[in-house]
């Protein structure tokens, strides 16, 4: 046969053509498989349903291991919008016990980017929360009718006591802000709000787990991916043991019924808070479950502001409870000696007049504390600020430094959110408020008796009391005693010592003991307990004087330091002393002696709110 060599060369064209195509395809494959990760992500979002397994939130106990907060199961109806196929709306409404309109509202809320900033058609979204057990049962039977829907099990909080809501806090759904701040959260998660739920959120929440399920093209679950070897088990949250004694807390809240104010009780040797009462308060279980939103807005609207923790956030004029700090500063600065006596002609009279009440004159520090003499402390501050050879600014700065060392003017650093710092003025403050004019001791004399510009929180007052009880040092007050499997922050185990000698504290403690034995705090003289105390009657621009008290017991080796602050309740001796002494007695003896039952009854039943009107803070 004749061979046509020209035509035979055409095999190269044909061979070259298919070779070229294969090379192009190899480039394309390389591009798809090696060059671009987006297909891998697409494939994962196709095939995997990553289902979060929520850990159990940590439990909360009191110092005597009484369970305060625990979990109960709750069910949320979730769906992945992309996978939701046509379904019978009417039967979903029937199963969930909803009207068509309610369902449409929930649906719109889920898709509304402002209400639900984490909305995406590809990730699980929450349609309904807190399904009742019956609804849960009905829905799980019928779930196959609603492709794309699933039920997410979560836990909500339950409380054994109706007290301490300000300490415990509650949990709420995360906001858009939380989602931005912490990548741990996904839309629909819960986070702590207020109290230890907020401040110990990271400890309590644990670590979410994840199971990877495979779903086929029609959305059916085909079991675990690679038998679950990529699944992550959730880690339960850690339990908290609070330092509070729930019985004392409950007793304190009962005593504060019908009153506005706060009680703070601290164990001086450790800084552990035994009770932290704010009044009015609310039942913590109001902020759980379906009714949370409604109840929360009612609490916000309540004129007595039950969500406001007066023990930490309330900034009050400390009144006479401030006087021990002044005595300590004067002693340390050498302005006075234990024997120094100042005259009191029913008050401080030196170009201006600060009133006082009847007692002997002249008077030294201890009896001045016992009788709460205003004149003594005014003279002391005057002698300190106007000391010869110094200037007022420098002396006030020195004064302020002592106050800060004693825990005033700044946040103490308690392990609860929203603590206030109180207010201790400095020299700059006065230079500004007197517009540069020369100010002297008399211009600021009322701060020596805890009035004027100074403001303190009940926690700071209790902390002062604990410092005196310890004769010169304190531990930062804290509410969490132990965290399971770990330790509390080291800052709570560090002793803070103001630069004031122990013997001065001893003298002040004696003065406070005298106040109970024969001074303003006679009401705190409990048989069998050596109580030391100091009253306070704080003038304020809102109405009647605030009634305050701080005290500790026993005199030697103190076990409890307590501060009581009752708004607009008159003399310190009227409410502060009885409530404080009842707290001390309850804590140390476990019960109230027969002789004091009348005081107890009077305190439990009295109401100071009606007589005072609504206050602003």
């Amino acid at each position, binding site marked *: 046969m004749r061979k046509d060599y020209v035509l035979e060369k055409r095999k190269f064209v044909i061979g070259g053509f298919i070779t070229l195509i294969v090379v192009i395809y190899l480039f394309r494959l390389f591009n798809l*498989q090696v060059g671009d990760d987006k297909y891998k992500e697409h494939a994962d979002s196709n095939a995997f349903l990553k289902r979060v397994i929520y850990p159990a939130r940590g439990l909360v106990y009191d110092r005597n291991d009484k369970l305060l907060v625990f979990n109960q199961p709750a069910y949320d109806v979730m769906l992945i919008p992309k996978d939701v196929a046509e379904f019978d709306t009417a039967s979903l409404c029937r199963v969930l016990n909803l009207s068509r309109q309610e369902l449409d509202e929930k649906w719109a809320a889920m898709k509304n980017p402002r209400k639900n900033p984490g909305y995406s058609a590809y990730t699980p979204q929450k349609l309904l929360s807190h399904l009742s057990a019956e609804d849960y049962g009905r829905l799980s039977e019928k779930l196959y009718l609603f492709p794309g829907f699933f039920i997410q099990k979560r836990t909500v909080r339950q409380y054994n006591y109706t007290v301490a809501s300000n300490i415990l806090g509650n949990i709420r759904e995360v906001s858009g802000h939380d989602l931005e701040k912490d990548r741990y959260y996904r839309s629909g998660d819960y986070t702590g709000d207020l109290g230890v739920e907020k401040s110990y959120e990271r400890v309590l929440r644990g670590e979410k787990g994840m199971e990877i399920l495979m779903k086929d093209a029609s959305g059916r679950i085909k079991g675990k991916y690679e038998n679950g070897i990529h699944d992550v088990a959730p880690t339960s949250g850690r339990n908290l043991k609070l330092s509070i004694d729930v019985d004392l807390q409950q007793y304190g809240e009962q005593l504060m019924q019908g009153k506005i104010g706060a009680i703070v009780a601290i164990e001086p040797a450790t800084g552990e808070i035994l009770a932290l009462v704010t009044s009015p308060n609310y039942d913590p279980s109001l902020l759980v479950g379906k009714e949370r939103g409604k109840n929360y807005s009612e609490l916000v609207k309540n004129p007595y502001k039950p969500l406001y923790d007066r023990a930490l956030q309330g900034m009050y004029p400390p009144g006479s409870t401030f006087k021990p700090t002044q005595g300590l500063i004067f002693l340390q600065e050498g302005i006075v000696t234990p024997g120094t006596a100042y005259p009191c002609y029913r008050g401080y009279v030196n170009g201006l007049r600060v009133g006082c009440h009847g007692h002997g004159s002249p008077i030294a520090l201890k009896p001045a504390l016992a009788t709460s003499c205003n004149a003594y402390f005014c003279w002391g501050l005057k002698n300190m600020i106007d000391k010869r050879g110094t200037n007022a600014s420098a002396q006030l700065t020195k004064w302020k430094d002592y106050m800060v060392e004693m825990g005033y003017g700044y946040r103490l650093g308690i392990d609860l959110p929203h603590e206030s710092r109180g207010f201790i003025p400095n020299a700059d403050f006065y230079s500004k408020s007197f517009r540069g004019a020369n100010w002297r001791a008399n211009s600021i004399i009322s701060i020596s008796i805890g009035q004027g510009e100074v403001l303190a929180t009940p926690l700071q007052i209790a902390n002062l009391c604990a410092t005196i009880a310890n004769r010169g040092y304190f531990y930062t007050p804290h509410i969490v005693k132990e965290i399971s499997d770990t330790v509390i922050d080291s800052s709570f185990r560090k002793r803070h010592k103001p630069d004031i000698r122990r013997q001065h504290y001893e003298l002040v403690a004696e003065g406070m003991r005298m106040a109970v034995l024969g001074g303003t705090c006679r009401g705190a003289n409990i048989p069998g307990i050596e109580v030391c105390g100091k009253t306070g009657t704080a003038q304020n621009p809102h109405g009647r004087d605030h009634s305050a008290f701080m005290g500790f017991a026993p005199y030697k080796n103190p076990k409890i330091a307590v501060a009581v602050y009752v708004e607009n309740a008159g003399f310190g001796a009227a409410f502060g002393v009885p409530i404080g002494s009842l707290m001390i007695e309850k804590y140390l003896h476990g019960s109230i002696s027969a002789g004091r039952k009348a005081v107890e009854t009077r305190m439990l039943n009295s109401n100071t709110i009606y007589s005072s009107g609504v206050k602003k803070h």
Partner: protein
Amino acid sequence: MSVFRSLDWVTIILYVLLVSAGAVSIYAASYDFDNASIFDLTEFSGKQFLWIGLSLVIGCIILLLDYRLYEAYAYPIYGVVILLLIVTIFVAPDIKGSHSWLVFGPVSLQPAEFGKFATALALAKLFDSYSFSLNAKISNYFRALIIIFLPIVMILMQRETGSALVYLSLVFVLYREGMSGLVLCAVVCAVAYFVVAVKYSTPLILGLPAGEFSVFVLICVIFCLMLLFYCRDIFIARNVILGFIGTGILVSVLEICGVHVNGLAYFLSAIGLGLAYVLVAMMRHRIKKFLITAGFVATSVLFLFSVNYVFGNVLEPHQQMRIKVTLGIEDDLRGAGYNVNQSKIAIGSGGVSGKGFLNGTQTKLKYVPEQHTDFIFCTIGEEQGFIGSSIVLALFLALILRIIHLAERQRTPFGRVYIYCVVSYLIFHLAINIGMVIGLCPVIGIPLPFFSYGGSALWGFTILLFIMLRIDASRKERRD
């Protein structure tokens, strides 16, 4: 018997490798998590193993038969198959709109797959006629085209467009047997014009859509190249090239100076002047090649004008959509683009080395439709990764190049033409199927040889290949 000694074992080894890889892929593609046995005949993989076994039997029978049988009965076989195709149009049940399956109880056959070897035999027989030469008479083209288009028409009537288009690949055979290369060039140019013109409708350049502008530039370039390398007239080519460059610069300068030029008018007049010049030159030299060049260029311009009309008015909406999706003009992930998108996801997620045998989530979880038939390559891409898919492509390329080699060593036109038919079919199936799966071609439903599930396709290719091997093995027995 001497047949087995003179068999081309390279082809057989490549065939066995591809069929085995295909069997493994079918097993992987149809594997379910609650999986059944490999040899369960109700399962895809079980059935496919049965088809593979039977195709080996068929292969052996073909090898044992006398090679002269295929030559002698080429036309009768062709006739029978055409009859079968006609019968199929009328008796086949409607399966997803197609009437191409003959159902015998549990077994279904697709006669279109057997049309391939029959057509190849008939075409080979035609070219083997005494002193047959394609270019000798124009009627020889008609005879060849009739053999090719008869099955195309029958299969189109069965509504199996994909299978029908396969026969168009026989243009490679015609090319090898002497048809002008310009026809291939024209096909390539037409595809290029079409893609560029349809894909780039913005921005406007000189008042023309970017696509049309580019096609005009392309036509000018091809015009010059043909004058240079086809007509080999450097003088005329130089004048035309200088003319285009000169006027092009002039137009650019005017445009920069703010005088707007009508691009359409410019290109039409420039190309028109070029053509007129070439025709005048032709009058002087009377060279046929100038005429062809001029015709080619003029046809190109007319083709460009007709593209938009054809695309918008002749093609059906679902075909338009497939083309738009392929060209990346539109994403239609729920409709026409769904298959290809899922198939790209499956392949793309395979990475370099793949997810491992039976670990492909996309294919196992049925994200890719038709994954065991037309989209079988996804399973390889996902589970074996770039390495595995490259190896499969390389095996196919090796097979095709080997078969071209076999074709060229034949001593008769019968053997050569038959084997080039096999080459053409393989090229078409490979290029279209893989191109479709990786999103480079529109979706045309044809199987990947040796891989896609189905007895008919496997047997069709096995018969094609083993007749080829039998013919090749007998090349030394001939005396000529």
